[in-house]
């Protein structure tokens, strides 16, 4: 496989990741969101493996496997269990409606491309064109956190942001050092556990996972 083909495949995967990020914004069902998140993780793992193969940085294979284990199997599984246990299958409400969110998302993507243009000029890595996609994924994850009211969607937004960061790391510098990646993976796992505990607490306190309810905690004068 030559570099050109690897680059092409990588670009394709980047496009699919961006698509999945938009799909996360558009999806109204919680289970659907979990599935899309798992798909995004799979695409990320594939992309990492391809970059690892093409660049000869073999530690990227381990990253790829780690991503596969964490983001495709373990985290979706935890979330799946959580959703079942808390019986929260119903539709989620958005602060801003879906079409507007999508429009905002498009603006963010354009903005990301504009922002990374100077880097694309300077870099000579084969992954340089995907940096914009990575940045866009981060921003779309953040947008999801801002515009959704449900606690689980906020976590998914957060995890999507993390995906974006990971993708940015591989596309900008062929991945972070192994120690850092292991550390990040561990953090993520722990974060997932803490989220789980918090969901239970929020759910028992407010009988809902709607974060709007938490505004009640504000002190009034």
């Amino acid at each position, binding site marked *: 496989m030559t570099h050109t083909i690897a680059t092409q495949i990588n670009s394709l995967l980047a496009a699919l990741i961006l698509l999945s990020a938009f799909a996360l914004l558009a999806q109204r069902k919680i289970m659907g969101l979990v599935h899309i998140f798992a798909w995004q993780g799979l695409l990320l793992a594939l992309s990492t493996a391809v970059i690892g193969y093409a660049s000869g940085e073999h530690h990227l294979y381990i990253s790829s496997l780690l991503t596969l284990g964490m983001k495709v199997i373990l985290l979706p599984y935890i979330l799946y269990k959580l959703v079942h246990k808390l019986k929260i299958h119903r539709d989620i409400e958005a602060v801003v409606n879906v079409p507007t969110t999508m429009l905002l998302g498009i603006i963010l993507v354009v*903005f990301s491309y504009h*922002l990374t243009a100077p880097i694309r000029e300077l870099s000579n890595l084969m992954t340089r064109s995907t940096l914009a996609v990575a940045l866009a994924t981060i*921003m779309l994850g*953040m947008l999801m956190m801002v515009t959704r009211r449900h606690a689980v969607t906020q976590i998914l937004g957060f995890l999507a942001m993390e995906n974006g960061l990971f993708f940015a790391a591989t596309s900008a510098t062929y991945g972070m050092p192994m120690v850092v990646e292991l550390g990040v993976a561990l953090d993520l796992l722990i974060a997932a556990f803490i989220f789980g505990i918090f969901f239970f607490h929020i759910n028992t306190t407010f009988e809902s996972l709607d974060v709007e309810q*938490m*505004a009640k*905690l504000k002190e009034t004068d």
Partner: protein
Amino acid sequence: MPAPLDIAGFSVLLLLVLAVAAPLLRSVRTLQITLAFSLAAVASMAAVVAGGMTVADGSVASAAMTLGIPGLPFHLRLDPLAGFFLVVIGLMGFFVSIYSIGYVKGYGGQRSMTQMICFYTLFLAGMLLVVLADDAYFFLVAWELMAAASYFLVMYEDEKGENRRAAFLYLLIAHVGALAILLAFGVMAGQSGRPVFDGYTFDAMRTAQLTPGWAAAAFFLAFFGFAAKAGVIPLHVWLPEAHPVAPSNISALMSGVMLKTSIYGICRFAFDFIKIFPWWWGGIVLVLGLISAVMGVLYALMQHDLKRLLAYHSVENIGIILIGLGLSMIFAAFHLPTLAALALVAALYHTLNHAVFKGLLFMGAGAVLHATHERNMEEMGGLIHRMPWTAPLFLVGCVSISALPPFNGFVSEWLTFQAFLLSPSLPHPLLKLLIPLGAAMLALTGALAAACFVKVFGVVFLGQWRGHQKPERIHEVGPSMRAGMLLASISCLLLGIFPTWVIGWLDTIPEQLCGGRLAESAGKFGWMWLTPIAHGRASYSGPMVFIGILAVVAVTWLLLHAHATSSRRVPVWDCGFARLTPRMQYTASAFSMPIRRVLGFLFAVREQVEVVPHTNHPSLPGSLQYRLRIRDRFWNWLYVPQGDAAYWIARQVGRLQQGRIQIYLLYSFVTLIVLLVFLG
């Protein structure tokens, strides 16, 4: 004989050991109190010895301790200026420690003595270290030690809300001041031209070449910081709050000594670090000193809480000290070293005198409080019969602070006047206007202070008992408290009778700081006559005045007691009233009423008279209720608007806090995008 710096080090070390060791003895209470305060007295005496030797020799010793942060050793230095303040701190520490043995026993078993002893010794150690420190870092550590220890001492009776509020106000203003001092050091270190961390030593600051603008910034930041600690108007508001609520031995130390550390700081900055300054710096110090002196004494006159009144007098006396310092700076700026030395000696002499007599007065107020459990003067009276020791000792303090010979207050105020009277040689027209006005205001201050202490002594000790409890229950205080006050009184007298020796001893300080000497001209006619500049201009003989006063008193006493019939005791003439009651006496508020009428616009006075009709007939007046409330105008002018502004800003900022998680996320999202747009 060990070196002075070693003795000073021993003193500090002993105090720190006491602070650590005091808790070990908490089960044997009496022993703990006696031992701790006796050793604190010993440590204080050691500081006096160290300081006295240094000032007498004019020697300079320094040392560096490799404590604290690696690479930033603590520097110590003992020069005559520091030595003089060691004497001030040590002398009062000695008197007050002896006094405290009896005073704190008055708390009975109700309170933790360990807390008192720990913070008391830390407080003393902090003050000693402030004057010994020779780098900005160590200075601020010592400064904060002093502030924090005194904060806990003000808070000692912490179950009262009033005390907590006063202590907080004190801590707040002390820290605003400390911040300004820190900034001043920063300016000095930054301008010293040395590498980053070398500029923090005082040595670097002495050699720093500052541009006039930076020098002014450094000096006025430091002056603001020290003024906040000293209670210069308008930064004085914490004094009348904190001093009354602190235990009296602590008030004596805070008012007598702690305020003086700021005088030390101002001297250090002006004469030691910056050295060359324009005359208007001294002018500003002089004007603030004048305002503090006059306003302080006027506010003091209006008070009827004994300790609060004394606290306002501290504002006044700090003002008088600043007048001397300001004059000295003006003379130094015009290159008149002898006159600068005269004014500086006047300021330093008054620093020492004020420490002694204000300490004495607070100890006396503590004795009164100890005996009567009363702070309000309107509820006292006739204590001279119940407290035959405290009354004359308190009177000595009153006479001293009113600047009457033969006691010490007179000498230093007289020296300040001499400095004023020699000012016409100054070449600036504005000063020619300011100086006579200042001299007149200083005279007014002295007169008002005398009026105020006539009121205090008359209302508290003379006349008849006005309070609710039975006067028979009031007893004279114990021997250690009497001893503390007696020693302070003797010091007042000696400092007043032998000024020539004191000036001769002090001479090394002006010599090092402003290049002028005073002792030669001042002591030209021996120890009998004090002639500050020239014999022809002015002279004062403490011993002669003392002997004269003694002679007059002795002759009067002899004339009165020559025959058994020359004095008779008869009932008081009651002006035709059938029955005289203690309530018919002149009260403290009544005494100060004329001044309140004349100068009432300076205070926020609220006077209410309410006539309660007689029960038998509504048109007959039954009783009158008179309410008087006098508040500090500065509180409403300066502090309330600041507090309101802080609340308003906090409320506006509080609007950011929506309580909705999406809004918070949006804040970070928008911040991220804005940063990417502008920095990307």
